[in-house]
C-alpha cells in the first residue's frame, strides 16, 4: 500500500478562500487528502462544505489561496486533464435528456477519449464493471429518468469509477439513499480507496457514517475549519456542541468500536441548561 506521506497529498487546499460577490463563504481553509484515505467534511448547513468541493472540482476558478489536485493548481489545469484525475459525485445530479444508465456511466470515459471517438471495447468493459461493482448491472438499459433517486446515485457513482480517477469528491452522495444503500455505497467507497488508492474527500451530514468510514475529519463552521484530525479526536462532544450549536450524545458503538453520535431533542437540552 502506498503511504500518503510518501507521495504527498492528492487533494490539497492551503489558505483557501472563496466569496460569492461580497459574501465570504470559505476562509483560510487548509486541508489535505492522501491516496487511499477517506476524509470527511462535516459541518452545519451553509458552512462552506459544498463550496470547497466545487472549488476543488474546478467549477469555481475565482478562489484565493491554493487548491491543488495531484500537485497542480486547479485553476491552471484544463478541464479535460482535471477530469482524468478527479471524479465528482454531486449531491443532486441533473439529467437533461433521457440517456440510458450505461450511456451515463460511459460519459465517465469522456476525458479519456479523443474528440470524435466512440468508446472502445475497453471503455465499455470499464463502464460495465463499474455498474456491476455498484450493484446496478440490471439497470444498464433503463432510462435514467425512470430510476429512483437512490438508483441514480449509484449510476453516478459508477460513472465516477469508470473515470478511473486518482481522487474522488463526494458531495453528500448518501443523502437520498436508504440505510442499506448508504452502507453499501460507503463500503464501496472504502474498497475503492483501499484497493485502488483513490483519495476520497466526502461531505457528510450523517455523523455516524462519518464516524464509521472516515479516516480523518475536518469540522467546518462559517467557512472556517474548527477542528481537523483523526475521526475519534474530532467528533467529540465539545467540538460538535460548538460547531452545530446543539447538544449531542457521544458514545462508543459497541459493535464496531467507532464513535456513536446521537443528536438530543430540544426538551432534554433545555432541562440540562436549567
Amino acid at each position, binding site marked *: 500500500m502506498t503511504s500518503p506521506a510518501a507521495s504527498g497529498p492528492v487533494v490539497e487546499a492551503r489558505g483557501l478562500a472563496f466569496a460569492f460577490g461580497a459574501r465570504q463563504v470559505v476562509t483560510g481553509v487548509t486541508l489535505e487528502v492522501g491516496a487511499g484515505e477517506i476524509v470527511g467534511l462535516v459541518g452545519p448547513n451553509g458552512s462552506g462544505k459544498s463550496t470547497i468541493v466545487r472549488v476543488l472540482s474546478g467549477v469555481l476558478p475565482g478562489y484565493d489561496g491554493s487548491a491543488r489536485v495531484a500537485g497542480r493548481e486547479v485553476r491552471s489545469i484544463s478541464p*479535460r486533464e482535471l477530469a482524468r484525475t478527479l471524479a465528482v459525485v454531486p449531491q443532486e445530479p441533473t439529467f437533461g435528456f*433521457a440517456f440510458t444508465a450505461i450511456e451515463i456511466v460511459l460519459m465517465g470515459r469522456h476525458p479519456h477519449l479523443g474528440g470524435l471517438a466512440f468508446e472502445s471495447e475497453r471503455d465499455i468493459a470499464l463502464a460495465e464493471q463499474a455498474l456491476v461493482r455498484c450493484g446496478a448491472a440490471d439497470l444498464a438499459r433503463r432510462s435514467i429518468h425512470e430510476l429512483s433517486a437512490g438508483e441514480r446515485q449509484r449510476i453516478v457513482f459508477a460513472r465516477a469509477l469508470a473515470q478511473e480517477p486518482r481522487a474522488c469528491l463526494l458531495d453528500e452522495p448518501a443523502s437520498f439513499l436508504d440505510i442499506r444503500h448508504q452502507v453499501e455505497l460507503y463500503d464501496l467507497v472504502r474498497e475503492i480507496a483501499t484497493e485502488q488508492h483513490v483519495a476520497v474527500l466526502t461531505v457528510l451530514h450523517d455523523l455516524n457514517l462519518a464516524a464509521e468510514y472516515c479516516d480523518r475529519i475536518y469540522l467546518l463552521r462559517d467557512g472556517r475549519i474548527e477542528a481537523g484530525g483523526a475521526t475519534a479526536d474530532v467528533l467529540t462532544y465539545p467540538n460538535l456542541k460548538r460547531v452545530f450549536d446543539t447538544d449531542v450524545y457521544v458514545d462508543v458503538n459497541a459493535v464496531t468500536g467507532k464513535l456513536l453520535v446521537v443528536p438530543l431533542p430540544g426538551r432534554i437540552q433545555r432541562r440540562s441548561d436549567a
Partner: protein
Amino acid sequence: MSGRAAQARLAGVVLGTGALLGVALVLAASVGAGRASLWALFGPADEIERAILLDVRLPRVVLAAILGGALTVAGAVFQALLRNPLADPYVLGVSGGASIGGIVALLFGAGSATILGSLGVPAAAFAGALAALLLIERVATVGGRLSVYTLLLTGAIFNAFSAALIYFLQSIASLEELHGIVFYLMGRIPSYAASEIAVLGFAVVATVVALTAMARDYNALSLGEEGARQLGVDVERVKRRTFVLGSLLTALAVSVAGLVGFVGLVVPHVLRRLLGPDHRLLLPAAFLGGAAFLVLADLVARVLVAPSELPVGVVTALVGGPFFLYLLRGSTRDFTGR
C-alpha cells in the same frame, strides 16, 4: 452497446436518413409545374426539359435540402445548449436581426432589378443577423462567461423588439411592399444560381461538421454545466461556439429563405424519439433528415395549389404544428423524451 456496434449504428443512421433524403430529392425533382422527367438528364431529351430540371428544379430542391439541414442542426444544438427540447433555431434572437435586415433592404434598397439582384435582400438580412449575434453575445456575457439564462432572455426580448420594429416597417410600407414583406417573412425557397448554392452548401456543411465535432460535449452538457465541466468539457468554449455557429446556420437560412418555422423544432424531436439522445447519432441524422423534410415540404408547397405556390413556411407550420401536438399527446413520455 460496444464501440463497434455504436459505429455500425451511426453508419445505419446515416444510410437510413441519407436514403430518405435521396428519395425526397428524386421525388421533388421529378414533380412540378412543367413536364420534365429526371430521365431527361440521361437520355436524348429536348432542351426545355433539361432546362427546367437543371436551371429551375434541381437548384431549388438542393437549396431546400441545405436550408432544411441547417435549420434542423441549429435547432438540435440550441436544444442541447439550453438543455430544453422546446428550443428552436429562432429562440436566441438572430432571426429577428435577419428579418429586420431583409425588410429594410426590401423597402429602401436592393430591388430585384439592381446589379445585386436576388443577393441584395439576403446580404442585408445576413448583416442584420450578424449584428444581432454580436449584440446578443455581448449582452449575455456576464463576468466573462456566457450565461445560458441571460442568452435565452436576451433572445426572447430581442425577438419581441424585432417584431415591433417589423410591424413599424410594415405600417409605413406601400401595399406592394407589404405583400413582399409578408411573403418574405412566411418563408419560401428562392431561385439561386448553382454557384451561389455551392458556396452556401459549403458554408453550411463546414458549420455542421464543426458542431458535430462537439457531439460528445453536448451529451455531457445534459448533466448540467458543472456536471459537464467535471467530466472534462470546456463548457465556456462549447457554449460560445455553439451559440455562434448555430446562429450562423440560422442566419444563413433566414437570410435566404425567411422564417421557415417548425423544421428545427419538430425534426430533432422526432429523431430523438427514434434514435435516443446521443448527439453523435442525432446531429448527422438531423442534417440529413431535416434536409429531406424541407425538400418534401417544399414539394407540397409547389404542387398543392399549382400552378400557384404556397410559402414553404406555411406548409411546415401546418404539418409540423399538429404533428408535434400528436407526438406529445400520443406518448406516455414527456417533452424530454423520457
